[in-house]
């Protein structure tokens, strides 16, 4: 097994509407993929040791490589805001003795250890990506069934994912929601497909846009919290795309934390802790690309949450509160001049 780190760069908007891929043997930064409202430049490949697979950071050199190669594919790349950079580790499997991460196939490897190593009753499935997980499950289950003598056909590939059971045309849907901008309805439809029916009701909640970059309404957030097993704001982001637009949660993070406790997803003080976690999670991806407008955005977000909201000056209820702020007024009451000040103020 090769743990191979791959980094990606996310660009503020869709600079391309179709995948642009460089025709050369796989190398760093040779593909730009549009994904919902953004474009992704990927990826790098860097072998790392096992002890580092949990503390991942995107290096400045990787960013430079991605930008340089991305620019060759689409020149706008360099002039557009990079929203985030993130990385993950691929569990690459060198089945035929490759020594370089790049040369190993990203395909799926299904190993029957009975045939391979004489270990009966053990199967390994490896490689692949989130996109191919259902196929991997199918292959694994098929092999297991074969061994167990189960004849039943696998039906995974026939079951549509939730929300895509029926195709609904955007046009007809948009007409149903007069008063809500098409951009909001269209975005919800793109994310939730048929579930739109349960989300977009003629309720005031749907007229309240919480995430203004990705057009997530209060109704969609309520649906996610109550129906889609959302436990914290990072979950909520994965379900709705809040905080994934250019502002990276500057306005919507606070709103979403407020709604999370309103809809019963967390206690009020817990929701503030979750808000902090969420912003820290956003920061992980923002800091490697902290220049230009990204830095401006980060500064602004910092002003709001630290400067205005004092998020890290929150008291921990369990600890003894002995910060001196409370003494300001206490001391003042003992102050001889206090009465005079009060009179002056009145």
């Amino acid at each position, binding site marked *: 097994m090769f743990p191979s780190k791959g980094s990606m760069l996310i660009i*503020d*908007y*869709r*600079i*391309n*509407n179709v995948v642009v891929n460089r025709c050369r043997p796989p190398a760093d930064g040779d593909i730009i993929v*549009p994904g*919902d*409202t953004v474009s992704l430049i990927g990826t790098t490949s860097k072998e790392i040791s096992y002890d580092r697979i949990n503390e991942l950071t995107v290096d400045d050199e990787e960013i430079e490589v991605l930008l340089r190669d991305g620019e060759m594919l*689409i*020149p*706008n790349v360099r*002039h*557009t*805001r990079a929203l985030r950079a993130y990385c993950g580790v691929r569990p690459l499997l060198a089945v035929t003795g490759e020594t370089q991460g790049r040369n190993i196939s990203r395909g799926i490897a299904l190993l029957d250890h009975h045939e391979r190593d004489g270990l009966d009753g053990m199967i390994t499935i490896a490689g692949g990506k989130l996109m191919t997980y259902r196929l991997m499950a199918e292959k694994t289950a098929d092999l297991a069934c074969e061994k167990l003598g189960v004849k039943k056909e696998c039906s995974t590939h026939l079951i549509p994912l939730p929300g895509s059971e029926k195709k609904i045309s*955007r*046009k007809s849907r948009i007409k149903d929601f007069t008063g809500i*901008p*098409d*951009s909001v309805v*269209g*975005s919800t439809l*793109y994310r939730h497909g048929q579930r739109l029916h349960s989300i977009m009701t003629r309720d005031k909640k749907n007229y309240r*846009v919480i995430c*203004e*970059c990705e*057009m997530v309404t209060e109704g969609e957030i309520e649906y996610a919290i109550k129906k889609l097993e959302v436990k914290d704001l990072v979950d909520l982001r994965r379900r709705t795309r809040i905080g994934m*637009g*250019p*502002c990276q949660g*500057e*306005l919507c993070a606070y709103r979403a934390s407020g709604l999370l406790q309103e809809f019963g997803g967390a206690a009020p003080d817990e929701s503030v802790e979750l808000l902090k976690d969420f912003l820290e999670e956003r920061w992980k991806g923002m800091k490697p690309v902290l220049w230009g*407008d990204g830095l*401006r*955005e980060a500064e*602004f977000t910092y002003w709001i949450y630290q400067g205005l909201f004092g998020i890290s000056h929150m008291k921990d209820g369990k600890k003894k509160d002995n910060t001196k702020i409370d003494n300001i007024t206490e001391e003042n009451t003992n102050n001889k001049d206090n009465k005079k000040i009060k009179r002056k103020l009145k």
Partner: protein
Amino acid sequence: MIKIENISFDHCIKCTVCSMYCPVSQATHLFPGPKASGPDAERLRIKNPELVDSSLKFCTNCKRCEIACPSDVKIAEIIQNAKWNYLKIHWFRPRDFFMSRTDLVGGMATLFSTIVNFIIGLAIVRVFMHVFLKIPYRTVFPAYEKTTFRRIFKKELRWSQSEFSKKIIYFHGCYVNYNNNRLGREFVKVMNALGYGVEMKKEKCCGVPLIANGYIEKAKKNALYNISSLQKGNNESKIVATSSSCTFALKNEYSSFLELDNSGIADRVEFATKFIYNEFLSGNIPKMKPLGIRAAYHSPCHLERMGGVMYTLGVLKNIPGLELIVLNSECCGIAGTYGFKKENYDISLSVGKNLFTLIDKAVPEFVITDCETCKMQIEMNTKYKVLHPVTVIAMALDRK
């Protein structure tokens, strides 16, 4: 692929300041505000052009959002561009067609001005326009002149202009040509008093109403005509205009909106008050008699966007005996042809309400403003007469 010049939305920090200063979203819930309609929705429209909203039509293009924006996002431009895409689908609208052809309609109307002015004043005609053309019943159209300014200039004014060695080129615009000949005469008088002779080149409507109504190809044609016409012959003189919107189009929008090369004229085009201010500054101040007038000044949105208000104020402060009350910057709500449409009429009035109250509170004798459509709106909705700064200078020159 998206051009690099057109990605100013990328600089948006989502600070919400633009929405705060938008006069339209204050007046109506139908407009989602400049932030939502502009930079926010632009990303989605790039993803899927179908996500264009009909609510875009409520934008008056007053550009107050751009003045407010700390990130230099061309919010109004983004909205206008998206609006055009929306209008492409709904291309034939008889009212908008005639409203945006100010030179075509004006040219015909001045020929039969007495009849036209009479007819559009008739109640039955206004009911017809209200129902079929969706022009609000209560709108008072500016009256058409009996002749055009060009004819007057040719007949009466042209001859004396050769006495002056210094020249300027006057871009009169449709309003002076068809609706307000007097302002043209006054402009010539003021220029002569400053020692400049006035020349005129052939011109077509600058294109502002065409741009506003989404007739981009026609606007481009007009723009190309004007650019080449203004460069013919005398190539050094300043091109001076009395309409702030025409100036903005010639100077900025031809290149920024219509993507045409106006570099041959952009630096030479000057709004009247800026030109006069610079003359005043260099000591060229004609003799003016004290006016003894109390007037309120309203700064038009487009002039503010051009950074031209300080020049107008500078000029007005030099006029003796003019007691000037500078009104807080508010939008009058007319926004060119916007307020002349039935669906916008109430919004337009609601936007302008603040301004009308300010004017009433100031109790002036006159209101001064640089823009012709602001003038119409203020005259329709307050009891005050509205003067152009050039008119005020001409008055001071005339005083005996």
